[in-house]
């Protein structure tokens, strides 16, 4: 490994990326537009139904509170998860009929009305538990996924597609004729794209946060670490695609094959929880699922790196496999 040669290729690649203004601005504007668009689309029209989580055994189903109309009563198995949902305004109230307790969020108007209804209709006195927490909007839930998706496109096309183009038009052949070796070339491509992705993700985050003000309960450095490992794994996947292909059309097809399932089955746009178990299992195969889940846990739940270590380990193993495969398969021509 000759660092002078590595650096020369790195610098040239950075310049190429930063000077391709059209591609660069699209790279930044696209996710910003998505996030801001969704923030507006889901900002008004809250649905009007009241949602109450109920911890109960069968014999108290005749409780008069439970006979009220226009309230959706949802049986709860896991009370602590339900409490988290109340604190995030995903449930308006949690009621434990066995122990005569209820939980509401002090900043929820619906919780206030439900409390009044409960006290006026029920026979028993219930003890009140207060929870606090801001509402989790769809856009808060969406942003980790959109950032992950942006990294995926940037890594796969910026490395995979570009190396195939270099091979087709002869840039690689000319470089092969110099003392530059494959390790220096590939690691320079990887390093260049990695820092550029992290810079762009930071710009998008800061830029959209200015308008939307995301919920962020975790540590920014931890989030950055998840994104760094995630981007690394995606770039390594790009190296596998780029290892041999000469045709840009075929590369485009293969990149589509990699990106489309990830876009829809990695929980970027909607939670995988309600889907068929088979689909959920499939989702675990994709690096984007682990990036999105880990980033979401840090942002929404304040998780630490230790809490998401499982996802990080999977990403690390995937990266290693992709990297070895990409390096092993790589041909200049």
């Amino acid at each position: 490994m000759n660092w002078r040669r590595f650096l020369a290729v790195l610098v040239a690649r950075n310049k190429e990326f930063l000077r391709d203004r059209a591609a660069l601005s699209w790279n930044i504007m696209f996710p910003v537009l998505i996030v801001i668009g969704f923030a507006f689309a889901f900002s008004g029209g809250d649905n009007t139904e009241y949602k109450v989580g109920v911890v109960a055994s069968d014999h108290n189903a005749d409780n008069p509170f439970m006979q009220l109309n226009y309230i959706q009563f949802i049986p709860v198995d896991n009370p602590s998860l339900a409490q988290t949902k109340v604190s995030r305004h995903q449930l308006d109230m949690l009621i434990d009929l066995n122990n005569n307790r209820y939980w509401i969020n002090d900043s929820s108007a619906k919780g206030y009305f439900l409390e009044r209804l409960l006290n006026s209709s029920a026979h028993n006195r219930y003890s009140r538990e207060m929870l606090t927490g801001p509402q989790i909007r769809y856009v808060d839930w969406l942003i980790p996924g959109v950032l992950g998706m942006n990294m995926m496109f940037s890594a796969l096309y910026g490395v995979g597609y570009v190396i195939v183009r270099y091979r087709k038009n002869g840039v690689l052949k000319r470089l092969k004729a110099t003392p530059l070796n494959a390790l220096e070339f590939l690691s320079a491509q990887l390093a260049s794209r990695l820092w550029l992705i992290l810079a762009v993700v930071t710009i998008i985050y800061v830029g959209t946060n200015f308008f939307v003000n995301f919920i962020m309960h975790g540590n920014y450095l931890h989030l950055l670490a998840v994104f760094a490992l995630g981007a690394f794994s995606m770039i390594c996947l790009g190296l596998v695609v780029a290892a041999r292909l000469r045709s840009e059309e075929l590369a485009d097809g293969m990149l589509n094959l990699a990106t489309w399932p990830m876009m829809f089955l990695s929980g970027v746009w909607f939670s995988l929880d309600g889907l068929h178990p088979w689909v959920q299992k499939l989702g675990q195969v994709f690096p984007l699922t682990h990036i999105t889940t880990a980033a979401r846990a840090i942002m929404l739940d304040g998780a630490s790196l230790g809490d998401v270590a499982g996802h990080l380990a999977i990403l690390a193993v995937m990266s290693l496999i992709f990297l070895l495969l990409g390096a092993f398969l790589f041909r200049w021509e």
Partner: protein
Amino acid sequence: MTPLLQVRQLSKHFGSVTAVKSVSFDVPKGMCLGLLGPNGAGKTTTVEILEGISKPDSGEILYKGEALGKQFRDQAGIMFQSTALQEFITVAETLQLFSQLYSHTTPVSELIKSCSLHEFLDRDTRKLSGGQRQRLLLAIALINDPEIIFLDEPTTGLDPQARRNFWALIRSIKARNKTIIMTTHYMEEAYELCDEIIIMDHGEIIAQGTPKSLLARHYNDVILQLPLPGNLPDFTHTTGFQVQQQDTLLELRSSDVNSTLNQLLALGMSLDGLRIRERTLDDLFLELTGKEMRS
């Protein structure tokens, strides 16, 4: 003295096609060697094997008496037939990039001067004209101050003006006692620049020598051209020349111009519009390969 480059029994197949068949030659230091041949003759394959870009199936290449090793890439100057350069970087930055890839380099400022790059130094490589582009690619080939330089069809696609400028550059490289191996489609180019030429066809060497010696060896005649007369005379009793009828021309190959002209006059032919030309490499090439060079 050992030749700078020795090529022994080089062969290369692509599937069932034999691209290069048992080719051997020597290149002494300071020589400009031209590889000529029709498309698909094996020129580029041969050159790319010499450059170390592709591996031969069999055969041996010795550089300064030793087998080609990895360090040869650091020592050879290479200009491919068609090369894209990285986009969105300028000519100066491209030179900078390549100069950092080699361990021993010519100062970039010297290359800018010798290849006349100063006018478009800050231009994006995508916006260069054909001639500017070839000059930049030549500068890149010279960037590691190589003793041996490979040029694969360096002037293909250039206009006559740009081609002549490029020839001047190659002559200036020759003047510095560099060894050059070039392929070309243009006989005139080979005649102007090369000390020795090798004509290849179907992967084999079919002729080799200095341009003048090749012509002298194959030809002792000149070509006389006349406009095709209305009534073709009877040539059955003439001697010392052959007649060929082209579209609108009568072509006569003669080793004794005086005798031929006298016989034509005796047949009552008009010599108006007569042209006499010497044999060129083009003729030799067509005769040896049976193919049109520029097709």
